[in-house]
C-alpha cells in the first residue's frame, strides 16, 4: 500500500476513470495547458489530448450547463470549477438543471456528471475563502461529497464519475498535500457512507474535509491531556447523509460536537443536530455544541482570518464544555 497525497489520489482517480471509460472527459478553466490551478490535472492533457481535457473560457455558468447537456446526451463529464466561490456563477445550471432534468421530465433523462470544485482559504479575503457545501446539499437530486482523506478522495471520486446522478465533489485546498495510505489495487467506495475514523467512548465529534483532521488532532490531544476519548465520525458524503454511524455513536456517548468550516447559521451542522434530536433525543446528556467559522466575511489580515476560522482548539474547548 502506497502513501500518496490527496492531490495524487484525486489525479489517480481521474486518470483511471478516463482510461476505463472513453465517455469520461474533463472540462474547466486551466485544466489542460496550465495543468490545473492546484496541479491536480497536471499531465492529463499529454495522455488524453485536447478532446478529453478541455480548457474552457472563464464561463462558470456554461461549464456547468454544458456538462449537464453532455451528460444527458451520453457523456460522463467531470466539470471543474476552480473554487466553490466561483461555483455561485454555476448555481443555476446545477440547481435548476442538473438536479431537475430527471425528475421534471418524468425520468426520461440521466445526468451522470461530476462538478469538481475546491474549498479553502489562506489570506484570500472575502470572496475567495468561502465554503458552500450546504447550498448544494440542500437540493434534492444532487449528491454532495467532501472527502477528508486521500483514500476517500480516490474511492469516492471514482464512484462519483460512475454514478448515474449529478455529484458535486468538493476538495479542500489545504488537504492537497496531506498524505495517506491508498491501496495499490483499484477500488471504489460507496457514496452515502459515514465512517468512524477514530473510536472513543466519551464524546461524538462529527466532522468532514479539513475539519476531520482538526477533530482527529483535537481527539489525540484530549486523550493525552485530559483522558477524554472522542469518537470522530467522518461524513465524506454530505448528501445522501448516512446518519447511522452518527446516531449509533451518540447513543453510546450521549454528547456531540459538530465541526465545520461553514459559517454559524443555517449550515450542515444545524441539520445534523436536528437529526440527532429527532432520532436520539432520549440519549441527550448535554446541549449539542457546534464549532464553525464566525459569521463574518473572511478578512485578509492573517490575525483576523485566524480569529474567523475554526480549528482544533475550538473543538477541544467545545468537547470540554459538553463533558463538563
Amino acid at each position, binding site marked *: 500500500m502506497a502513501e500518496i497525497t490527496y492531490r495524487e489520489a484525486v489525479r489517480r482517480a481521474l486518470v483511471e476513470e478516463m482510461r476505463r471509460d472513453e465517455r469520461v472527459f474533463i472540462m474547466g478553466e486551466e485544466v489542460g495547458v496550465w495543468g490545473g490551478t492546484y496541479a491536480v490535472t497536471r499531465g492529463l492533457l499529454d495522455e488524453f489530448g485536447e478532446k478529453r481535457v478541455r480548457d474552457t473560457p472563464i464561463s462558470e455558468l456554461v461549464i456547468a450547463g454544458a456538462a449537464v447537456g453532455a451528460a444527458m446526451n*451520453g*457523456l460522463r463529464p467531470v466539470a471543474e470549477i476552480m473554487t466553490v466561490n466561483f461555483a455561485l456563477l454555476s448555481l443555476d445550471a446545477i440547481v435548476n438543471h442538473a438536479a431537475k432534468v430527471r425528475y421534471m*421530465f418524468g425520468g426520461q433523462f440521466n445526468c451522470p456528471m461530476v462538478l469538481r470544485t475546491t474549498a479553502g482559504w489562506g489570506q484570500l479575503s472575502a470572496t475567495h475563502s468561502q465554503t458552500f457545501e450546504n447550498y448544494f446539499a440542500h437540493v434534492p437530486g444532487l449528491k454532495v461529497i467532501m472527502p477528508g482523506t486521500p483514500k476517500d478522495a480516490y474511492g469516492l471520486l471514482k464512484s462519483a464519475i460512475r454514478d448515474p446522478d449529478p455529484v458535486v465533489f468538493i476538495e479542500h485546498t489545504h488537504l492537497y498535500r496531506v498524505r495517506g495510505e491508498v491501496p495499490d489495487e483499484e477500488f471504489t467506495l460507496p457514496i*452515502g457512507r459515514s465512517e468512524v475514523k477514530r473510536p472513543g467512548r466519551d464524546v461524538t465529534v462529527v466532522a468532514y474535509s479539513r475539519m476531520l483532521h482538526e477533530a482527529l488532532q483535537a481527539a489525540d490531544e484530549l486523550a493525552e491531556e485530559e483522558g477524554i476519548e472522542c469518537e470522530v465520525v467522518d461524513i465524506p458524503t454530505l448528501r445522501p447523509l448516512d446518519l447511522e454511524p452518527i446516531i449509533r455513536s451518540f447513543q453510546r456517548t450521549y454528547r456531540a460536537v459538530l465541526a465545520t468550516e461553514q459559517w454559524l447559521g443555517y449550515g450542515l451542522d444545524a441539520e445534523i443536530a436536528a437529526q440527532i434530536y429527532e432520532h436520539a433525543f432520549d440519549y441527550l446528556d448535554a446541549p449539542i455544541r457546534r464549532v464553525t467559522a464566525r459569521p463574518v466575511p473572511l478578512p485578509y489580515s492573517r490575525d483576523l482570518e485566524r480569529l474567523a476560522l475554526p480549528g482544533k482548539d475550538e473543538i477541544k474547548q467545545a468537547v470540554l464544555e459538553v463533558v463538563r
Partner: protein
Amino acid sequence: MIQLQTEEGVLSTFDRETLLSWYRQMILIRRVEEEAATAYQRGHIGGFLHLYIGEEAVAVGALNALRPDDNVVVHYRDHGHALARGLPARAVMAELFGKATGCSRGKGGSMHLADATKRFWGGYAIVGGQLALAAGIALADQYAGHERITICFFGDGATNNGYFLESLNLAAVWHLPVIWVCENNSYGMGTSVERASAVTEIYRKACAYNTPAEQIDGQDLLEVYAAVRRAADHVRAGHGPYFIEAVTYRYRGHSMGDPERYRSKEEIERWARHDPIERFKRFLIEEGISLEMLESIHAEVEEEVQDALRFASESPPPPPEALWEDVYAAPAAGDPFILPPAVAPAQ
C-alpha cells in the same frame, strides 16, 4: 410536386403531402393551444400556460428542415415545438392536465414537455438556461463523431443574460454543431426589445461570437424552412454554429393572465393581418390545392384535438408514489435525503 424557390435558386422540391403535413402541424398547434386556453380558464390546467399562437411557422418551418434524429432544445413556450416534432397531441394535452399519461408523466407541465425517444430534450423555464444545455448536447455528438446537429430556440429576452453570452461564445470556440434560433416576438414578458436590448436587431449580437447570422421573417413558413436548411448544411458540414433571428409575434399574452398594458390592440391586429397560417394557406391555394382539401385537414385536426382533450381529461393523475420517483436514478426508499445503503453506485 411543388418547387421551393429561394434567392439561391431551387431549394427543394416537395410533394403536396409534405406541404399539407406542415399546414396540418400549424393548425394542430393553434387548435391545441386554443383548447388549452379554454381548459385553463376552466381550471383543468394549472400553473403557467405560455401560448405560441402566432409563432407557429417558426417551429414548423425549422423542425421540418432537420433530420428526425437531430436534437431539439426549447424554452418554456414549448407546445408548438413539441407538436411540430411529432409528440402526440394526447401526450401534450395530458401533460398540461398534469396526468400520468403526459409526455413528462405529469411532473413537468406546460413548460417542461419532453420526449427522449424523439430527441426532443425538453422545454426549459429559466430564461437562457437551455442554451448551455444545448451546447453540451451538441458537444456530446461532436465528441462521439455523430452527424447530428442541435437546434436551440430562445426568445429575444434570453439574449440579454449571461447564458447567451457564455453559450454562444463556447459554441463558437469549440465549433459546436448548433443552430441558435432566436424567436424575436418583440417582448420579453411585457418589456419591449427596444426597452431591454441595446441592439434591437438581435442577429447582430452573433457577430460578437464570430457566428454567421441572419434575420428572417418568422411568419413565413417557407422562409424559415429555407433558412434552417441553410443553417443545417453549414453546421453539419462542421463549420460551427449558425444564428437565425426569426422575427415573429405572439398574439396572446406572455402567459394566461397577462394584463397586456404594454401593447395596443392595433399592434396585435396589424400582425394578425400577416398571420403565418393564412399566408401559407394562400401559398397552397396558389399552388393549386383545393379549399376542400384544406377543410378536410381542419376537420381531421379537430377530431385529433377533441380526442386529446378527452384522453387528458379521462387519464388518471400520477399515483402518490410518483412523488418520490426519479429524484435519483436508483429508486428511493421514500426519502431522497437519506438514501438507503442499497443506493451505492453501480460498479
